C-alpha cells in the first residue's frame, strides 16, 4: 500500500480484526485468519438501483423513482460471509439482484474478479455467472415444478458445460445430493413431492453444481420451519468450509446472521447505516437503528427477557419512493437533532472496520 491509502467505504479491515472477548471455536479462528489474508472477491461501490415509476400505457413516462438501493458500498473478501440485514423493503434483495445482474444497476460499480459486472456484455457475463450463484428464499417457488430434481441440478452444468457428458452429470447430481444430505434417489422426483427443507437442499445443490466461488443467500432460511432452519444453517456452514465459499447472506433474523456471518451490514431504506465485524456490531452497535433492531429481537428465555430493556422504535419504514431528506432514519430516530433532516450523514469508519452512517454519534 502506498501513500494514496484510502479505504473504500465499507471495506474489510486491513489488519486482524478486534477479537471478541469470549472464546471462539478453533474453526472460527481459522476462517477469520483466512478472511484477513484473503484478497477481495467482490467490491460494490456506490451502487444505486432506482426503479423508474412510469405512467401512461402508450408512451410510458417516468414520474418518479423507487430508490431501492441508493449508493451502497462494501467489499467481501474471499471465504468471508457478509450478512445483510434490515427491515422489509430496505433493498437487500435488490442489492443481490444487482450483483446477479437480474437488474441492471442505475449507477455504481460491482467489481468481481476485476470485472465490472454492470458493464459486462451478455456473453462475458454469462461466463462469469458460473462463479456467482444464488439461493432463494422461497423453496416452493425457486424450483421449476415441471422439472425433476435431477434435471434441475444438472441444467446449469449442461449450460455452462462444466460437465459436458450426460453420465458425468448424473454422477455429479448423485454426489451433490449426498453432499446436501439427500438421498440420490430424489433425482427423479418432482419438487412437489418434497418438503420445504428438502427443497431448500435441492436449491443449494443447484447452486453448488457449477462449483461457484460466491453464493448469494437471499433469506435462504427464513421460509423454513424453526426445526429445519438449523439443519440448513449447518449445511451452509459446512459447505462454506469445505469449498472455501464466499457468501452474501441476506436475512432479517439477527440471531442467525450473528451465528453465520463474519461481518454484518445493516441496511435501512436503500442505504447501509452500519457495517462492522459481527461481534463488534452485536456487542457495540453504534447506529440508533441498529440498536433498536437488536433490542427488538426477543430472546427465548423468560428470565433474560424480563431483565431486558425494551426500547421500541416508533413509526414504520417510509416508502423508498420519497425517502426522508437528510438521514433517512431521522423521523424514527430517538437521537435525531434538527440537522439530521438536512445533512446526509457520511458513512464513516468510527473504529477500525466499523463503519457508521450517523452524524450524531
Amino acid at each position, binding site marked *: 500500500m502506498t501513500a494514496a491509502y484510502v479505504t473504500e467505504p465499507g471495506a474489510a479491515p486491513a489488519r486482524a480484526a478486534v477479537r471478541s472477548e469470549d472464546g471462539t*471455536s478453533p474453526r472460527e479462528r481459522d476462517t477469520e485468519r483466512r478472511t484477513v489474508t484473503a484478497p477481495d472477491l467482490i467490491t460494490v461501490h456506490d451502487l444505486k438501483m432506482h426503479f423508474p415509476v412510469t405512467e401512461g400505457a402508450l408512451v410510458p413516462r417516468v414520474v418518479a423513482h423507487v430508490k431501492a438501493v441508493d449508493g451502497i458500498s462494501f467489499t467481501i473478501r474471499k471465504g468471508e460471509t457478509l450478512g445483510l440485514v434490515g427491515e422489509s423493503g430496505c433493498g437487500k434483495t435488490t442489492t443481490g439482484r444487482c450483483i446477479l445482474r437480474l437488474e441492471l444497476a442505475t449507477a455504481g460499480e460491482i467489481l468481481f474478479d476485476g470485472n465490472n459486472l454492470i458493464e459486462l456484455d451478455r456473453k462475458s457475463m454469462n461466463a462469469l455467472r458460473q462463479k456467482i450463484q444464488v439461493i432463494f428464499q422461497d423453496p416452493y417457488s425457486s424450483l421449476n415444478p415441471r422439472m425433476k430434481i435431477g434435471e434441475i441440478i444438472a441444467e446449469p452444468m449442461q449450460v455452462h458445460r462444466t460437465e459436458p457428458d450426460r453420465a458425468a452429470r448424473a454422477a455429479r447430481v448423485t454426489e451433490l445430493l449426498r453432499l446436501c444430505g439427500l438421498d440420490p434417489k430424489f433425482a427423479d422426483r418432482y419438487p412437489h413431492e418434497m418438503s420445504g427443507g428438502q427443497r431448500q437442499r435441492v436449491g443449494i445443490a443447484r447452486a453448488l453444481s457449477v462449483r461457484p466461488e460466491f453464493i448469494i443467500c437471499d433469506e435462504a432460511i427464513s421460509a423454513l420451519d424453526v*426445526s429445519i*432452519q*438449523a439443519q440448513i*444453517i449447518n449445511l451452509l456452514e459446512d459447505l462454506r468450509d469445505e469449498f472455501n465459499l464466499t457468501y452474501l447472506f441476506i436475512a432479517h433474523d*439477527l440471531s442467525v446472521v*450473528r451465528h453465520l456471518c463474519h461481518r454484518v451490514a445493516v441496511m435501512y431504506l436503500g442505504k447501509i447505516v452500519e457495517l462492522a465485524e459481527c461481534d463488534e456490531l452485536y456487542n457495540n452497535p453504534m447506529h440508533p437503528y441498529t440498536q433498536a433492531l437488536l433490542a427488538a*429481537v426477543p430472546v427465548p428465555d423468560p428470565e433474560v427477557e424480563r431483565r431486558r430493556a425494551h426500547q421500541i422504535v416508533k413509526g*414504520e419504514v417510509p416508502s423508498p419512493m420519497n425517502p426522508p431528506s437528510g438521514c433517512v432514519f431521522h423521523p424514527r430516530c430517538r437521537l435525531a437533532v434538527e440537522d439530521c433532516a438536512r445533512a446526509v450523514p457520511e458513512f464513516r469508519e468510527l473504529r477500525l472496520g466499523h463503519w457508521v452512517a450517523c452524524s450524531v454519534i
Partner: protein
Amino acid sequence: MTKLLEIESLQTHFFTSAGVVRAVDGISYDVDEGETIAIVGESGCGKSVSALSVLRLVADPPGRVVGGSIRFKGRDLLQLSEEEIRDVRGKDIAMVFQEPMTSLNPVLTIGRQLTETLQQHLHMSREQADARAIELLGLVGIAEPARRLKQYPHHFSGGMRQRVMIAMALCCNPKLIIADEPTTALDVTIQAQILELMKDLTRRFGVALIVITHNLGIVARYADRVNVMYAGKIIESGTAQHIYHDPQHPYTLALLRSVPRMDRPRQARLDPVQGQPPDLTRLDGGCAFRPRCGFAVSRCASLPPLDGVGAGHLAACWETETVAGSLQRAS
C-alpha cells in the same frame, strides 16, 4: 377462580382425497381469565386449526370437529346452534389473524369493518358505532382516527392493519382474544410494537389471550403459560419458566437447542432437530416425534399420556427422566 375456557380432547380432522388429516388430535388445555397462553410448535402441527375450532370456523368440508368439548364460561361451544355461536364470535371471543394484508376486506372502509361488528353485536346506531370506532383506533395508536375511518385497507401499512385488526378484536370487550401468529408477517421493529400493544391492552382490559406462534422468543417475553404442540397433540405444557428452563419433552428440548441465541456466546455449531416433520395422514398409534427423537426407546411405539411432571407442568413422554438427566449433564 373459574376457568374461562376449557378445551377437552378436541379432535379436528380434515377429510381429503389423500386421506384423513388428523390436524388436531385430542388436545386439552384451559385458559383462565386475563391469562396469556401461548401455543408453539412447528408449521403444520395444528395450531391454527385448534384455534379456529374454538369458534367453529374450520372450513367444512373438508374439516370437521370430530370429538371433544370446548366449554366457554361453562357452555359447550360445540353444542351451540349456529345463531348462538355467532353471538359468541366477535363478542365474547375475538380473533386476530396472521396475515394483516389479506385479513381485511379490501373493498370496505376500515370504519365499515369496525362498525359492522358493533352494530351486529351491540346494536349500536351508526353514530355510536362511529364514535366507538374512532375511540378504538386511537386506543391502538393510529393517528387521526376520524380521517382514517374513511380509508380503505390499502392505505394502511402492514403494521397499521394489524393494529386495526386488534381494534376490531377489542370492539365488543371480549373476554378472550385468540391471536394466530399476529406478528409473523411483520418486521422485527413493528413486531415489537404490536406485541407491546397487545400485551398492554390485554392487561388493561383484563382480556385473556391465546397467542399462537413459532417464535420462541415472543413466547418467552409475553406468555404466562405455554403449550407446545407436535403433530396435532400438546406434548408439553407449563409456565414459560418450565418450558425454557426445565423442558421435559425431547422435542421442546431440541427446539430450544436448535435456534442460535443472541444472549449466549456464539456457538460453533447448531444442534438441529433431525429429520422431517410428520405427515399427519399417516400417524401410527405411537409417539409422533419418535422417528426424530434421540431418546426413543421401544416403549415409544405406544402413545405416552400428557402427564404431570411437576406443579402445573405436563409432558407427554415416557423418557422424561432421561431427558431431564441429559439437561443436567449439559448445564
